[in-house]
């Protein structure tokens, strides 16, 4: 047996598990998306492109010959991508100072700050989301405090708005941005920072000219880690957005539940997967040393 063969043999269990757990369900989804819906959920074993067709298109209710874009689905797709991008942006804006703050604490106290950042991860997503509801609802913490302080007379409607969804999403995903950013910043050689300061850079220029470019891998990794779950999120948008504006995740969930259209759900899931793959491709291009070299040179 050659070394290569032995290596494959050793890898076999891992490959088998990956095949069953990751590739298997995906394959099932792919197959389902090309079948017809069953009457009470599930699928009928008959080939059909209807599901894929209705991801983006709809037939006129009275004349099936007229095909038009599925405005509802497109709106949901756009809303999901836009929310995921906004969430990523908010996480970057909040995550950068947070990660930098932690990375510049004395050694030994950084672990504590990291722990504090990850605390939200230790609680259930639903509990966290309900907690946010408590904070921002009309008689919640923020409004009560503001009214008692006399800043406002009427409570501000925050819950069940896009703002609430964004706050909730950013809160949930912020650690996924902070951790890789911190890891990248912590690796930046302190002497480079001193060299920059010595060469007449203010603190801000030091950050922009040295810390920012050198922590780019962390920024990109964090963005991908936030963007991918954010684009499929459905619990937070439903609880904080009031369920009025569906997200891609809600739409998929609907097809497998009340909608009883598993093939459409499967096709939508595959669409989501495609979006995630696009995000990953962008990521790989961004961290590829060759591309990095090109855009700096």
């Amino acid at each position, binding site marked *: 047996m050659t070394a290569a063969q032995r290596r494959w043999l050793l890898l076999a269990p891992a490959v088998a598990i990956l095949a069953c757990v990751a590739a298997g369900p995906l394959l099932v989804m792919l197959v389902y998306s090309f079948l017809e819906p069953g009457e009470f959920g599930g699928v009928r074993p008959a080939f059909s492109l209807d599901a894929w067709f209705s991801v983006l298109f709809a037939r006129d209710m009275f004349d099936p010959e007229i095909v038009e874009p599925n405005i509802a689905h497109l709106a949901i797709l756009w809303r999901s991508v836009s929310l995921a991008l906004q969430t990523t942006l908010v996480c970057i804006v909040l995550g950068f100072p947070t990660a930098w703050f932690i990375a510049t604490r004395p050694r030994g106290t950084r672990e504590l700050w990291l722990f504090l950042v990850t605390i939200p991860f230790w609680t259930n997503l639903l509990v966290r989301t309900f907690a946010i509801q408590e904070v921002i609802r009309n008689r919640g913490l923020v409004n009560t405090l503001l009214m008692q302080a006399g800043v406002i007379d009427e409570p501000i409607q925050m819950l069940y708005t896009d703002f609430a969804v964004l706050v909730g999403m950013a809160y949930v995903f912020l650690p996924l941005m902070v951790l890789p950013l911190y890891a990248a910043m912590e690796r930046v*050689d302190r002497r480079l920072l*001193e060299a*920059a300061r010595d*060469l007449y850079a*203010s603190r801000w220029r030091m950050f922009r000219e*040295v810390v920012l*470019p050198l922590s780019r891998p962390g920024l990109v990794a964090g963005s991908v880690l936030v963007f991918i779950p954010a684009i499929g999120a459905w619990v937070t948008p439903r609880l904080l957005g009031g369920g009025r504006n569906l997200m891609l995740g809600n739409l998929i969930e609907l097809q497998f539940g009340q909608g009883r259209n598993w093939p459409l759900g499967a096709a939508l899931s595959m669409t989501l997967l495609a979006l995630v793959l696009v995000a990953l491709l962008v990521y790989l291009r961004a961290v590829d040393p060759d591309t990095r070299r090109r855009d*700096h*040179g």
Partner: protein
Amino acid sequence: MTTDTPATVRVAGLTRVFGDGGHAVRALDNVDLQVKGGEFFTLLGPSGCGKSTLLRLLAGLERPTAGTVHIDGRDVTALGPDRRPVNTVFQQYALFPHLSVADNIGFGLRMLGWSRSDRAARVYEMLALIQLEGLAARRPDALSGGQQQRVALARALAPAPRVLLLDEPLSALDVKLRREMQDELKRLQRETHVTCVFVTHDQDEALALSDRVAVMREGRICQVDTPAGLYEAPADAAVASFVGDASFLEVELLDTADGQATVRLPGGSVVRAVLAAGGTARGGDRVTAMVRPERVQVGAPGDGALEATVEEARYEGGTTRLRLCLDDGTTLFARAGAAPAWQPGARVGVTLPDGALRVLPA
């Protein structure tokens, strides 16, 4: 570029304490120092004596606990590193890995707001100075150690600082490259006339490069002098043993008169010695005297005032370094011409000519 102001760097009462309470470390303790314009000034001392701390205080990378730093007569004690006309060459070079050689060299100029064309011209001038014109577009990780060193020098020199600070810049290089870079450094300093404050714990390097050297120990400055001055006239035993080889003998002081002393050697013979300043010893006291190895004359047994046994002989190309043991047990180093092949165990006669011995303050 440089005018001959009396003191380009003036440090007074500079103190830096790290930590507090029982764990406080006095890295620098009440240091006074003046560096003249255009001078190559070296801080020499063993590891942990506070050399880097002093340099970082000059650069503004560290804040003093007490004391002041003046550069060109201006008090810069409260200014950050970006507002002091000094630049540093760091021990591990600290080149920006994401920037090309040219962008590294131009970094300081860009921060100072130089225009793109002025910057390009200055960077080219610097590349020519360090003879690396062909490598402008390279990344630092694609350079050899010596090349990185040159780029670090060029980067620090590009903004034409009033003072160039160098913290053991050559310690990462191998011996041969190190020699080359020492010459290179001296050439750069001659051509740019920049005032240099150089940190090293290598006494050979300090003696070879410097106009003046400050010997440091435990956060204090023991002596500031020219290399020859340090070697010939060390202020105390610590300086004498740190700079060059030195042997120490217990002698009896017979008489002192304006810088001269008459002493009785362990064997009984009487010689004239130089009296170091600051001593309080009087006639009749037992004192410590120092002698440099090349001043010790070694001959056949019975030839000199002292008798000794060769303990170790190391041929060093042209000369032989001898470790001798006097009959009273004192160790004495000597450097002899290679001619007689003394072997360990051989008996020799030792002469200490008038003026070879230097009586040190107790």
